[in-house]
Every structure is written in C-alpha cells, then in structure tokens.
C-alpha cells in the first residue's frame, strides 16, 4: 500500500501490524538531539503536521552546491522512547520510521494521537538511499551537526513494515511472546 504525505488520520487508522507500506512524499529525519530538544520545549521552523519522522542519521555530501544522500538506514529507535509520544503529539506526526521497535508509552501515544510505527530494514542503507529523490532542505545543522540535523527528504516508494499500529497492536510484543513460549517448549 502506498502512503502519500501528508497522511490523514483515517488512512493511519486503517493500517494494521504486518502491513507493508511504501511512502511517497516528504519525510523528516530526527534522532537523539532533536527529541531531547523538543522535549525540553524547543520548536522547529518546519511544519510536520500529517508528516513522517525518520530515525536516521544520514550520510550527506554536497555535490555542485546540492546536498546528496549517500546512505540512509534507520537507527535504533528505543533511545527515543522517553520522548516519542510527546513528540508525536507536539508535531502532529502520523508515522515514525525506525528500527527495533518502541515501547508501551509510544504504543499508547500511537493509539491516542493516530500514529503508526514503521520498521525499515536495518542496515539497508543503499536501498533506502536510492528511494530518496531529493534533499529539500535542512534545519538545526549548525546546532546538532549533520547526522543529528533535521533533513527534509523527498522520497519515492520508501518501503517499511507497520510493526506498531494505532489500535494498540505491536508486532514486537507479539513475536517476543510467541518466541518465548516456543523456546520454553524446546529447552
């Protein structure tokens, strides 16, 4: 299923754990520094309402005065667990992309504010970089440095799996519980 940004709440509510989606439109990157910054009351000069936040510290180079993305795989999301639900509410996000899944607080935030957690394929830096068609801009570059800055990326068919939905479903919880049960039988 293709998700075009900005995404409506209805579309998000129609998604369920295990769905494969492809994002086309605009995605913003943000990781540790920006989550802490927003949590501490900071605000960004960009409107992300209905948008997508990507946990990613991309490798960017400037070629002929234009930023080009060389690698853009997801980073581990759990580090943002203390802040994520608040950031979803504050920015009006409809989706968060990362890897490794997140915890109960974020799951509750997804349910309350109509958001999903999307899992990109960890390590697939080259495939994901190819989905980025253009670097539209950047903010907080001076303040946070390149990997932590908020990059505005134009993406086409960026592939992810819904692993936490807006109905309280979490693939991470389900797989952990079932694998634990299976292991107990095999020990």
């Amino acid at each position: 299923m293709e998700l075009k940004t900005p995404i409506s709440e209805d579309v998000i509510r129609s998604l369920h754990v295990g769905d494969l989606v492809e994002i086309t439109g605009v995605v913003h990157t943000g990781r540790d520094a920006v989550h802490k910054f927003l949590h501490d009351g900071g605000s960004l000069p960009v409107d992300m309402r209905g948008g997508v936040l990507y946990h990613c510290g991309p490798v960017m180079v400037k070629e002929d005065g234009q930023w080009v993305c060389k690698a853009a795989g997801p980073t581990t999301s759990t580090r943002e667990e203390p802040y994520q639900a608040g950031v979803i509410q504050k920015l009006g996000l409809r989706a968060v992309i990362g890897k490794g899944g997140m915890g109960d607080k974020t799951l509750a935030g997804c349910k309350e504010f109509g958001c999903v957690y999307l899992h990109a394929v960890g390590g697939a830096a080259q495939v994901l970089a190819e989905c980025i068609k253009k670097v539209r801009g950047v903010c907080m570059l001076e303040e946070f440095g390149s990997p932590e800055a908020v990059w505005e990326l134009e993406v086409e068919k960026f592939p992810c799996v819904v692993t936490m939905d807006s109905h309280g479903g979490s693939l991470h919880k389900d797989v952990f519980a079932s694998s634990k049960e299976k292991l107990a039988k095999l020990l």
Partner: protein
Amino acid sequence: MAGLKENLLELIRRTSAEMPDDVHRVLTESLQAEEKRTTAEFALKTIHANIEIAARKSQPICQDTGSILFYVHVPVGGDQLVFEEAAREAVAEATKKGFLRQNSVDSLTGKNSGTNLGPGTPTFHFTQTRGATAVDVRLILKGGGCENVGAQYSLPDSRLGADRDLKGCRRVILDAVLQAQGKGCGPGVLGVCIGGDRATSYAFSKEQFLRPLDDRNPNPELDALEQEIVATSNQLGIGPMGFGGKTTLLGCKICAVNRLPASYFVSISYMCWAFRRRGVVLSADGGTIEKWLY
C-alpha cells in the same frame, strides 16, 4: 610500506562494500526458504538488493561501518609496528574516501576524531607463525547495533536453570537469541566462547567470525551444539528483523578455552546480516597481493 598501505586500503574497501561469498550464499538460501509475500521475504529481498547496490557502487553495505578489527598472522621477525602504522594510514584514508564512516568517538568528551583513529581504535590482533613467508591479514567490520546485543553469562545461572555443562551453555545461548530479537539487524550469526576470563572470553567469541559459515567444528560435541542452536533458533519464529519468519540465525560458531576452576563464562557475540569480513595474503613486505581470502 607504500605498497602495504595501498593493499590494506583495498582490503578495507572490499570489506565495506562486498559481502563475503559464504555469507551471501546462506542469505540466498534463507530467501528461498522463506514463505512468499511475507514481511520476512520482504526483509531478505531488501537485504539482497542492498548487497547488490553496495558492490556495484563501491559504497558501504551499511552506513555503520563498525569497529575495525584486524587479525594478522606475520612470519617470525615480521615488524608489527610497521604494519600498524601502514594500517592506521589506510584506515584514515578509507575514512576520507567514504569506505568507512567517522566512527571513533572520545568517550569522555564525545568528540569524533573524524579519522577512525584514536585510543583503542582500530584494534590489532597479531600472531606469529613459524616458517610462514607471507602475511595473512583478515579484517572484520562489526556494527554497533549488533555489538550492543552481545551477552556474557556466568554459570551457573539459576534464573535460566543453566548449570556448568553443555546443556547449560545451550540454555544461555538460546536466551541470548531470544533477547537479541528485533535488535542487531537479524538474521545474524553467533560467535560463542565457553570459558576464559571476562575479557578473553569475548575476544575469542569474536574470533569465531573468522571461520567460514560452512565449515564444521572439529570437536564433535561443539559441532553438534552449533547445528542444534541454529536449528532451534530458526524454529522460534523470530525471523529477519524480528518480523517473524523462518530465518533467525544464519550460523553459530563455538569454541571452548580453559577457565579458572571458580569461573565459567559463556560469551556470545552477535553479528548482524551485514557480516563484513574479508582477508588477503600479502608478501612478507606487504607490497604484493598473493591472494584474496573468503
């Protein structure tokens, strides 16, 4: 010296951009084994596409180019310091060229050295070989996500019901597989050491990654345990990225070393699917490439 540096630079480039054949083969078998049109199949297909693009563009398979681990066999009398100097220069240049990400951070100030050089990075493990005439260099790049899910158990472990025997080892290794799920970019490979002290045990567990995935352990008991751990892990339904599916582990390599009577450590290092390991045999002065390994 100049030749040595150039050859090591090429070793780093290949390691970062080109998957070793033995790992690629197992990943291909896994893709064939997964159910079609599942998220597991999607993850493995993406991994395959990624490997292909990285090799074609000569760019890092994963942006985290990880810890840089050199394992070097030198002839008796070979100058290790000269090797280290050349390797450091090659690492700095590889970082400039983008084969390696800037990955060496001062633990106290948080400052990135920008060159991958600094106290403790990269690391060198030298061995002298009597009668050898060539230098055997192997390089592993091990990412941070998978390094973070490594685990060390001290047996007996009453929480897991693990005693000081192979059955106990099996229990803790499988616990590590369970806990690592969804993190560390599976499907992965385990390197395990039974015994040693806290430091050597982890060091030996990492050396297991030098073994080709399709080799067999010369010790029949450990060989059986290796096969069994892979088979059992792949029945847990954890799957690639923890999405669910058949492929949880691509391999498991186990060694045993002596321990103190008072200690019984089982150390588990986890390697992500982006298993970057290459090797090269060089002439004694390092200037000529005799052959590529893996």
